[in-house]
């Protein structure tokens, strides 16, 4: 994408040459939009992941404020970023993941939030303060979150097992289930799990630590049913695996599809694991920034936050919303062993820059 930027500069130059006057208009982009609480300055255009909010909920917002609300969808952060960065996207609210927020902030592609227009930000759990990508929450608020951990079929494995990554990596614990274990087919997630088991950060840029993780994954490869990302949850409930590495939201949904959801357990091992956080932000050139603030504030309310999680089954960062969660979801969320090592043991996957290729290489070598 670097070369493209050069093109863009060229195009911007042409545009500047044509637009002789009005140069000072966007010089004060650093200031937050001048919006009052619940102010509406036009229709809402939301740019979100597919199936991430109930369309009825969106319609409710539209009716409540007497505007129309549209939602368009993207399938990856990387698909969304160039569209926002090119400008004139027409979107008012976007939902980038953690690492993408740091990229958007660095490129000045999201605007500062006006905290006076988002009083409901007080509902956000303290677990989400001081995030590495937006430490003071100036630019974004969390939307939904989730973890990567282990799903277990307790009818086969039993209930008496250590809440540790050793359940996958240590043959003396899970040797009896060889061939029924699965790891994600994802360099950062799977190398990250091994790094955590070894007591390192999953964002390490130390070649020695990564090599040890590589050896660990390599020694486990023969004991696996598969390296698979798309069907981790389905393998577990269809009996192809009994211990699976996967994403929290996918696991919950899949467990609830079965006749006996209580037969399955999902947890993040005590050594820690991955936490991802999707966030709401406002593009730098959003046509209706005040409607955007109003929407963000509305969605951070207790009822709306609960409705969001009850529909998409991902974790809510909203403390006030927890009381409104559906019972079956609460059963999972309230499991005291869900985060065996506590919130502090979780880490977001950060972009390691030039070191990233080492993760990919190590993973390919470990898979053999």
């Amino acid at each position, binding site marked *: 994408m670097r070369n493209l930027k050069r093109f863009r500069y060229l*195009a911007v130059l042409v545009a500047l040459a*044509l637009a002789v006057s009005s140069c000072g208009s966007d010089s004060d982009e650093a200031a937050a939009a001048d919006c009052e609480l619940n102010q509406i300055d036009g229709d809402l255009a939301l740019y979100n*992941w*597919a199936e991430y909010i109930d369309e009825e909920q969106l319609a409710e917002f539209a009716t409540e404020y007497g505007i129309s609300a549209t939602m*368009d*969808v993207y399938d990856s952060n990387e698909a969304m970023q160039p569209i926002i960065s090119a400008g*004139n996207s027409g979107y008012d609210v976007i939902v980038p993941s953690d690492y993408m927020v740091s990229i958007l902030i660095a490129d000045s592609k999201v605007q500062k939030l006006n905290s006076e227009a988002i009083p409901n930000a007080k509902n956000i759990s303290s677990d989400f303060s001081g995030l590495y990508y937006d430490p003071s929450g100036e630019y974004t608020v969390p939307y939904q979150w989730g973890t990567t951990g282990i799903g277990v079929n307790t009818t086969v494995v039993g209930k008496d097992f250590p809440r540790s990554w050793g359940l996958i990596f240590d043959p003396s614990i899970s040797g009896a289930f060889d061939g029924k274990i699965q790891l994600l087919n994802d360099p950062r997630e799977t190398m990250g799990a091994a790094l955590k088991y070894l007591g390192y950060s999953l964002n390490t840029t130390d070649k020695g630590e990564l090599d040890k993780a590589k050896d660990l994954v390599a020694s486990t490869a023969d004991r696996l049913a598969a390296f698979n990302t798309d069907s981790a949850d389905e393998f577990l409930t269809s009996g192809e695996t009994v211990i699976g590495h996967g994403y929290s939201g996918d696991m919950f949904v899949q467990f609830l599809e079965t006749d006996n959801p209580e037969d399955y357990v999902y947890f993040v091992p005590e050594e820690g694991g991955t936490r991802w956080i999707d966030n709401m932000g406002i593009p730098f050139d959003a046509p209706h920034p005040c409607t955007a603030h109003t929407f963000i504030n509305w969605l951070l309310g207790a009822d709306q936050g609960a409705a969001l999680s009850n529909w998409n089954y991902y974790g809510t960062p909203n403390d006030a919303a927890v009381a409104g969660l559906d019972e079956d979801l609460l059963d999972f969320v309230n499991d005291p062993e869900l985060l065996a090592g506590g919130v502090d043991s979780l880490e977001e996957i950060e972009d390691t820059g030039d070191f990233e290729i080492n993760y990919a290489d190590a993973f390919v070598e470990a898979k053999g």
Partner: protein
Amino acid sequence: MSTSVEPRGWAKAALHLNGWVVYMFFYAPIVLLVIYSFSNSRNVGTWGGFTFDWYRDFFDSSNARGALSNSVKIAIFSTIISVALGTMAALSLERFTFRGKKVFDALLYLPIIIPDVTMAVMMLLFFGEFFDVLDTLFGLGLRKGFWSISISHIAFNISFVSVVVRARLAGMNTDLEEAAIDLYASRWKAFRYVTFPQIVPGIAGGALLAMTLSLDDVVITQFVAGPGWTTLPVYVFGLIRKGVTPLINAVSVTMLVISMLLVVLSLVAQRVRRSG
């Protein structure tokens, strides 16, 4: 005469078999797709009994219905424009000589040759900056959406239409056209009553291709779409992130049915023309 070129014995049998294998290769996945769109299980590949639920989900979802109607609107509009422009381009390149004809000829193939992603990024930057400039100059307040997607689809479809129409024109004798002009038909009348009826199958083929490409396009559309203008393929692509459920099969089957209807319609249109 014809028997001499026709293979015999085992060669014929092998060719027969090859034909069947090729068709199976084409259609077996489609048949599976259709079958599993009726499966009452969230997981693709596990048969969970017969159900229409996924189709109901699809038509109940206003997002999906909106995406379908966006796709159809854009496909129809961009096809009409690109067929007109593409046919004109084909005629001028095939029937006339002018300066720089070779260059135009080569340039016309560019949208066919360059990768989708390249075209998508070009379009993205074009609309990002071009709309900005228009905005600054005239304050039109242009937003990406119907027009940006349609213009992009027209941009690549012109090439495809003109290639198809040119193939038809190239195989056509100019004698009839010249005879018509000799008999005092004006240029327009010669085109209207002699040339045009002969190239209609080419135009119909080009239109069909253009419409299919427009309905199928993901990459370019995703980059140039604006608020409220998610098309069906882009919507399906987005759904995959949440795991492949039979809902995607149901949507795909719907698209398949639309595409097949188009093919059947064009065949019928050509038959009517021939017998009429």
